[in-house]
């Protein structure tokens, strides 16, 4: 029978460490290292927002100003991105275009979230409303969102507001479903039932117990809705069902550049890159938020 015949001969001390010690890092660097998505996504988004807000300071050109003499000029120092086929400065249009996309994105995210939360809470708490609402959302969700937005914009006057409303209606069912799911699962929790048993009124229960727990998934979903809204707006503008043509939305600019894209590809690609970067930033932010807020993401060791 064999027991520990070999033992660490280091005379009563712990055996050596198997891992090298980590370099100590400052708090900010550590945070960035652990949350790269939020750092990059949020940073890029803030950059885009600044560009949008400070547009008049960045460029002196008026995006709607047509100068037929300078039609179709290639990029130069006078016109950083050249001019489009109506003589408008592309740089100015792209910079002002940021305003449209960001505005649509945020507005849709906020509206869809508010409507979705309202619907989700009503649906989660009241059984009879639930069945009706679920049927309606099933129906809405079975229509591909872009087609739904197209249907709504096709029969109304072209305007950015209508685009926002249309996309909000298309994205709202998903948020409603999400909130409903959270409410349903929370409703059965002991502390909620205890609050109900103690006679707490419903609005207070919702405010105090339910809403705080829905904040995390709502925030994450809202960022995804924002990204989807920006893309949808661009596609709508691209196919002519979105913002009116005089407004410099990135989708519009690309749509206008379509006709000559093989000769002047930059008319299509420059707004495309701006759009992609913005959407990418929002998606990264959403991913980062989800990873940071989801308690299950903690790795099991």
């Amino acid at each position: 029978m064999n027991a520990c015949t070999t033992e660490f001969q280091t005379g009563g001390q712990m055996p050596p460490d198997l891992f090298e010690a980590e370099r100590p890092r400052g708090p900010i660097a550590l945070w960035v290292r652990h949350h790269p998505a939020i750092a990059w996504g949020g940073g890029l988004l803030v950059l885009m927002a600044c560009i949008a807000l400070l547009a008049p300071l960045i460029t002196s050109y008026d995006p709607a100003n047509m100068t037929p003499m300078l039609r179709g000029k290639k990029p130069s120092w006078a016109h950083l991105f050249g001019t489009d086929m109506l003589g408008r400065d592309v740089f100015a249009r792209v910079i002002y275009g940021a305003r449209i996309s960001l505005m649509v994105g945020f507005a849709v995210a906020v509206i869809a979230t508010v409507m979705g939360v309202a619907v989700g809470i009503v649906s989660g708490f009241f059984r009879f409303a639930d069945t009706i609402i679920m049927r309606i959302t099933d129906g809405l969700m079975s229509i591909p969102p872009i087609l739904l937005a197209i249907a709504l914009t096709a029969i109304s006057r072209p305007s950015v507001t209508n685009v926002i409303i249309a996309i909000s209606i298309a994205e709202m069912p998903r948020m409603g479903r999400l909130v409903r799911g959270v409410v349903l699962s929370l409703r059965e929790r002991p502390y909620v039932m205890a609050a109900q048993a103690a006679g707490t009124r419903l609005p207070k229960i919702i405010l105090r117990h339910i809403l705080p727990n829905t904040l995390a998934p709502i925030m994450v979903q809202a960022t995804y809705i924002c990204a989807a809204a920006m893309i949808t707006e661009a596609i709508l503008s691209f196919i002519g069902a979105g913002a009116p043509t005089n407004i410099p939305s990135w989708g519009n600019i690309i749509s206008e550049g379509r006709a000559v894209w093989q000769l002047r590809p930059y008319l299509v690609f420059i707004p495309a890159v701006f759009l992609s970067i913005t959407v990418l930033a929002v998606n990264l932010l959403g991913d980062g938020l989800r990873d940071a807020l989801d308690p299950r993401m903690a790795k099991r060791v």
Partner: protein
Amino acid sequence: MLLNAILKRLLATVPVLLGVALFVFSLLYIIPGDPAALIAGDTATPEEIARIRSSLGLDRSFWVRFAEWLLQILHGELGTSIFSGMSVSHLIGQRLGPTLSLMSLTLVVAIVVAVPMGVLAAWKQGTMLDRLTMMGAVFGFSVPVFVVGYLLAYVFAVELSWLPVQGYRPLSDGIWEWLRHLILPSVALGGIYIALIARITRTAMLEVLSQDYVRTAKAKGLGQMNILFRHALKNAAVPVVTVIGIGVALLIGGAVATESVFSIPGLGRLTVDAILRRDYPIIQGVILFFSMVYLLVNLVVDMLYVILDPRIRY
């Protein structure tokens, strides 16, 4: 037993379709403003507006018109185009081929590419491969479909001239011609779909790989491929298949833009033209058609669950 379940589910989709039909139909009535005037345009004469109004049925009672329309649909007639006077069903039938080709090719390519990608990323979690794959997925998610389309067209068609810039050839022209014209559009359309599927596959696989039964499989000395595909993937299949079904909605929406970029004469182009002319009956018909397709696809997905997971029985 299974047939019973399928029939029950099919029956359940009918009310949803009815709801969609009601919604799409009633939009014309509930939107503020006069849709007939809008459709006719700013330069229309009162007679034209009246003509459009009567052809849309706006001059008659809502429910009467709705019932008539439903009856029409049951006979396979989805409406009449304001612009051309042709039957909407006929138009859809004409344009169905190219769209169906594009969507099915994209579906197959996406699944074949994305699922292994997700599995690999999950297996090599934390490594450079995983990070690159997921970065790629976020990009695929974020770059709009028509941007990818133009990019691909520029590089492969304009600059390198390997593939045609636009157009569509039906299968009857030969399978290689058919494929050649669909490669770029499929990749463009599939980008977002691949990104979505790869991400979900990876997430689902990570969840599964941390389960006890995977540890047991390893303790039995099974090979890595066996564990990944026979033990793990089968368990991750349910959320993956779910997202493949839901993603069809993205395919449909993206097809609209892709067909514009590559000038493919499909349903997407039909819709775009209808938008420009505000030919609402066509839009109505297309929406109803696509919703039905989407619901059917998800029905198939639900049925697949039974095969994939023995715990699910209807």
